[in-house]
């Protein structure tokens, strides 16, 4: 179940996009999101859609994989359509029964909202599909660095992100183990009403929390034992450096933003 959600999963192909500097990808995603909100006509959406399709091809990510990820937001899309079609104010009434009116403006608005939403999700998931979690946190840390002068804990935020990402598979495995152990003692998670099922979760949740705290404690000790004291004076094995391909990518993004503003 949990494994079916493909949004944000890293998909390694070592393409041109994968090899870009993570900072470029983060900034580009921001630029992309802003330009999506600046667009106010269909040609703009078409251009952005073509752009994102090209990126997907260059990144060698199968379209199927991305569409599968969209399944998770299907409900939100449906909700947006219904809300916009029936609630938007408008003059040109196409259909009317009782108090519910379907207007041309409403349908237009719904189309725009849905394209915006879908393009938004695909665009931002492309970033996580092509960037490994470690690169991503490195990029965020490096981008936040200038703000540390005004008290933003750049390194700490990045470290928290990478630790939480690292812990997801560990906790999943742990849950599986505890579930099996309790099932061996006759626990039943599958039958009964909602209250009975909620109660049946206690034998899983209590040990899971305890083990999460224990692991956090041990990790903190292990980090301190290796002289971790925050980001100060810490050097890196892999320094992030902008290369020519990164400048090319940034220029392409700049062109896209300008085009969307002009249209």
């Amino acid at each position: 179940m949990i494994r079916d959600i493909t949004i944000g999963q890293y998909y390694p192909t070592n393409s041109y996009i994968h090899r870009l500097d993570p900072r470029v990808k983060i900034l580009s995603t921001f630029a992309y999101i802003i330009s999506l909100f600046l667009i106010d006509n269909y040609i703009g959406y078409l251009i952005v859609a073509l752009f994102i399709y090209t990126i997907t091809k260059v990144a060698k990510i199968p379209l199927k994989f991305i569409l599968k990820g969209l399944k998770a937001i299907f409900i939100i899309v449906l909700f947006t359509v219904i809300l916009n079609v029936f609630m938007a104010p408008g003059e040109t009434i196409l259909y009317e029964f009782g108090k519910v009116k379907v207007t041309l403006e409403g349908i237009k608005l719904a189309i725009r909202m849905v394209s915006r939403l879908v393009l938004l999700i695909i665009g931002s998931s492309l970033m996580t599909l092509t960037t490994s979690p470690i690169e991503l946190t490195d990029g965020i840390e490096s981008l936040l660095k200038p703000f540390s002068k005004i008290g933003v804990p750049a390194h700490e935020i990045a470290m928290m992100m990478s630790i939480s990402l690292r812990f997801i598979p560990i906790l999943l495995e742990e849950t599986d183990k505890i579930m099996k152990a309790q099932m061996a003692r006759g626990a039943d998670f599958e039958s009964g009403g909602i209250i009975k099922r909620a109660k049946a979760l206690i034998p899983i949740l209590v040990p899971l929390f305890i083990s999460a705290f224990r692991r956090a404690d041990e990790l903190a000790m292990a980090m301190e034992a290796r002289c971790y004291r925050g980001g100060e004076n810490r050097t890196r094995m892999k320094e992030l450096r902008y290369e020519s391909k990164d400048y090319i990518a940034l220029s392409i993004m700049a062109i896209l933003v300008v085009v969307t503003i002009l249209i």
Partner: protein
Amino acid sequence: MAIKLENLTYTYNPGTPFEKKAMSDVNIHIPKGQFVGLIGHTGSGKSTLIQHLNGLIKPTSGNIYINGRNIHNKDEVSIKDVRQQVGLVFQYPEYQLFEMNIYKDVAFGPENMGLSKEEVKERVHKALSMVNIGEDMFDKSPFELSGGQKRRVAIAGVLAMEPEILILDEPTAGLDPKGREEILGQVSKMHEELGITVILVSHSMEDVAKYVDRLVVMKGGKVELDGIPREIFNHIEELEDMGLAAPQIRYIMEELSAKGMDVKKDILTVEEAADIIASYLKKGGIRSDS
């Protein structure tokens, strides 16, 4: 209570790039009341195998019979009964403790079986006394206990279901020598007194040499060797190739005989070796068993 495994095969994530065969074509027959040791290198399929025995994992192919009944055939036996008959103690079982006090935690299993309050009480008392936890501790939180005590309480949680087959996955991992001795001694005592079948997964050759009647060695998801410990430990080289070993005392006896002492080599425990060496010396260098 016999266990019969027939052509058991299990594949993780079949049909995906992560496909991995954890067990292939395993055939084992364990008669009632046997004390079986299961050894093998990490990743040899031991844990996968034991999780099959109470139906936590369903085999990709093959059959599991407990007492002649196929456990995945709902008409023959319910999975709930199987889990009651086959008690499985996982590695580091203390991490599954969750209740407010020891009594309640041990009662979790029997309560799931739907027993009456009196029966639950009786079983909890019995199980906890088997692992040497006194009545004065019953109201303590399981999280206040020492590592060895926690482990014993967790084992009692399985014992309280009164299984006829007890499976322990490395019950002594991470314990000090005294804790190891206590737990294995109690398991062995239960095996003798109650006549239950015991399967012990272990990385300690000394432990299996001391307690088990039969040894099953796994490698790469297959049963590599199967026989009595004295016999299995004759295959020292094969065991070493698998990343295992014979008990240390065995190596000492090999060294002694290489140095010219004519002593029996296929021994299992330190006590046995001591007797043999003592009688060898007393008789002035004459082998006593021949």
